[in-house]
């Protein structure tokens, strides 16, 4: 009785707050009876990934433009990563520098304007004016338009011009309609953007006059959900219909009849670069033992929960020059031990770590935590290399970008990158393996590789390019300069009352006209 009064005061306050809350809590009615809308949750659509909006002429925003079905490119990638016409119907290589591209007839922008040579010329002209990366890739000297054809002259022979035109920045948009303050553009895709808030949401509406079939939904919302667990729960609660970027650990929750998965190997690869400035790694036996001592299979099955494929070379097997086109060393701990023994690395003091000439077999493994798979790779390799006689010191730090430029600070560097964003192999080699590469952190050098790279640059024949790419990867593997551990399997999950959300190896195409309610 004594304290009951105070208690009742507080209870009343608590009830008041709860009442206030539940009063606001309108019952969430299920409006999806006749499914005409679709909500996609995506973890990467934000400014931190250089996708602040859907304007393809800005940073990597083209990815959003093409993924969410607003923009389309002149050429596109087939499921086997070959170039096929899209907004173009064909091309003719007049000479090494001149490309004559025929455009599809009867395509209009969502602004109502017809897509013709002039429109494409304006769009590409603006692109190379404002977008540094595109300018460097395309090397366009001049563009001329004539009816439904455009003729592009490059300043240098550009065998991969069509690949670059298929990059998301190559989305053809109506420059007359321009770019709104929110970063909205008018493309030719199955959906048109209605509103956009950076890092929050994008609303799309069906493009009634789409040229290639009828889009399946009246309205689509793309929500940026940066937290993977929130994304999981939003799909569980039915607030979103499809998800991109779900944590692997959540997959078991959706492996049932209520959901469908679509996955494919991408060219995002987790790989290890050896530091050729490091005295211990200059020893070929040590590099070889590392290459033989990383258990890729286990990394993929246990740690990636099967959401990856063990890698041989830099490219996954959807590419003709990927997968089995090269041979990498198998995981072979006994072989690795033998290699080390032979080179004189033996454990003399019985501490489990091998020595040679008083030097312990210690390697410093540099990596970073912002990509969740990398610390897992480090920890897994630490154990499997440890069993062979290595002492692996892991440094997983957000500061890796400055450390990796100091060759005295690390021995191996594990990182993740997209090796063939344009479907062409040259990119990986020019950025990572040559003397002129910006990301050749380990200062690897091979005369043979430099020679082949020069040849690759001047080769137009796709089959020959593939051959060269395979040979070049083999050089890297034979030198044990890189160990390619795993290709990421990119998966999208969606409710099974929706069909057509299909993962594509190049990761460019998500929302297409094929996305529709399941019958």
């Amino acid at each position, binding site marked *: 009785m004594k304290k009951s009064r105070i208690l009742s005061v507080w209870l009343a306050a608590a009830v008041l707050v709860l009442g206030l809350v539940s009063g606001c809590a309108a019952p969430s009615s299920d409006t999806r009876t006749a499914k005409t809308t679709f909500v996609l949750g995506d973890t990467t659509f934000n400014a931190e990934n250089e996708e602040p909006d859907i304007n393809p002429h800005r940073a990597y925003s083209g990815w959003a433009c093409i993924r969410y079905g607003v923009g389309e490119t002149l050429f596109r990638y087939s499921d086997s990563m070959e170039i096929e016409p899209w907004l173009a119907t064909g091309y003719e290589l007049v000479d090494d520098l001149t490309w004559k591209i025929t455009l599809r007839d009867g395509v209009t922008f969502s602004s109502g304007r017809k897509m013709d040579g002039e429109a494409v010329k304006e769009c590409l002209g603006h692109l190379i004016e404002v977008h540094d990366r595109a300018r460097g890739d395309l090397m366009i000297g001049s563009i001329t338009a004539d009816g439904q054809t455009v003729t592009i002259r490059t300043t240098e022979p550009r065998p991969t011009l069509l690949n670059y035109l298929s990059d998301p920045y190559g989305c053809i948009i109506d420059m007359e309609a321009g770019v709104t303050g929110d970063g909205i553009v008018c493309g030719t895709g199955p959906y048109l953007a209605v509103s956009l808030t950076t890092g929050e949401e994008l609303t799309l509406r069906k493009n009634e006059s789409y040229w290639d079939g009828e889009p399946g939904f009246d309205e689509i919302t793309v929500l940026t959900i940066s937290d993977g*667990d929130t994304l999981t729960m939003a799909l569980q609660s039915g607030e979103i219909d499809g998800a991109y970027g779900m944590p692997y650990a959540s997959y078991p929750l959706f492996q049932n009849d209520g959901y469908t998965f679509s996955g494919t190997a991408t060219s995002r690869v987790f790989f290890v670069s050896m530091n050729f400035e490091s005295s211990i790694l200059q020893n070929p036996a040590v590099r070889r033992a590392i290459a033989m001592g990383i258990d890729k299979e286990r990394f993929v099955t246990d740690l990636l929960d099967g959401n990856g494929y063990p890698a041989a070379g830099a490219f996954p097997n959807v590419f003709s020059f990927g997968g089995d086109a090269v041979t990498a060393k198998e995981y072979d701990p006994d072989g690795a031990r033998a290699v080390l023994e032979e080179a004189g690395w033996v454990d003399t003091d019985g501490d489990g770590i091998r020595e040679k000439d008083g030097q312990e077999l210690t390697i410093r493994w540099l990596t970073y935590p912002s990509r969740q798979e990398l610390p897992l790779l480090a920890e897994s390799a630490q154990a499997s290399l440890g069993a062979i006689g290595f002492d692996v010191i892991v440094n997983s730090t957000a500061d890796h970008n400055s450390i990796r430029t100091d060759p005295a600070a690390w021995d191996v560097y594990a990182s993740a990158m997209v090796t063939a964003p344009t479907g062409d192999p040259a990119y990986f080699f020019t950025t990572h393996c040559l003397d002129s590469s910006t990301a050749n952190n380990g200062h690897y050098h091979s005369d043979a590789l430099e020679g082949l790279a020069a040849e690759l640059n001047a080769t137009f024949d796709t089959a020959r390019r593939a051959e060269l790419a395979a040979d070049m990867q083999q050089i890297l593997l034979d030198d044990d300069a890189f160990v390619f551990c795993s290709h990421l399997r990119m998966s999208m999950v969606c409710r099974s009352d929706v069909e057509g959300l299909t993962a594509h190896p190049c990761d460019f195409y998500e929302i297409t006209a094929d996305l529709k309610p399941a019958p």
Partner: protein
Amino acid sequence: MRNYVLRRLLQLIPILLILTFLSFGMMRLAGSDAVLQKMENTGMAVSQETIDDARAELGLDKPFLTQYFVWLGNLLHGDMGTSYVSGQEVFPTFVSKLPATLLLTAVTIVLTIVISVPLGVWAAVRQNRWADYVIRTASFLGNSMPNFFVGLLLLYVFAIRLAWFPVISRGVTLRNVVLPSLTLAIAMSAKYLRQVRAAVLEELGKAYVAGAKARGVRFSVTLTKSVLRSCLVTILTLLTLSIGSLLGGTAIVESIFMWDGVGKLAVDAINMRDYPMIQAYVMWMAILYVCVNLVTDLSYRALDPRIRLGVRKG
């Protein structure tokens, strides 16, 4: 009085200068920059030329001191610059996140008081009885659970199992703020109910309580009229400290509940080395800090007659 407030506010200027300079310097020491961080996120490598161009565009190629003074000079003209990441102007971006943070802070504080004060008082009154033990155990539990754990648990129970709330809270509304603020309030209450309990226990041990009892004053009256009032200073100190840290944002909770406040903005800015945005955040923290301290002191004066009358607290 007015002079006192003015003097305290003037202290803000040196603190702002020191803090912004320190944070500028420290971000420099932290290595990397916005250009490299963006490259890492997209998983693409670009040529050194492109990197250098991008740096030059942001002024990152200039010496450190020049960068700082350019920033300071612009600030004096009322220009806080544009974000290196989104390209948006810093000031409006930052201000647009404030309503969410303010609402979250307010509701969290209310919830914390509603939870921790009655439980703390109850535990004190029933010291070493079962109620006390249950409450204290709950407080250990609250104290040993990370924020993300509580947040995900609440989401699981209230959004998925019971479906009372949506998982994705779109918009700054009272309904959407409940789960995130409950997450924060649980952790804070776990701490504060113990402090309240201790404060009440100390007060209850004082002679006047026994005196009042002897005079036949009902215990509930003593408790509400005297004991709680004396504990108010303790509670107030705790709350003002928390208000400061809450207004500074809570990145994990904001990210789990998609609550668009300054915490996530700050952490993203720090991770991306978005210097102008970090500077805005540092200034916000400094202003908060000085203001919260000032308000605390002023309210002490109002609450405690000894301070108000200029008697040194003994």
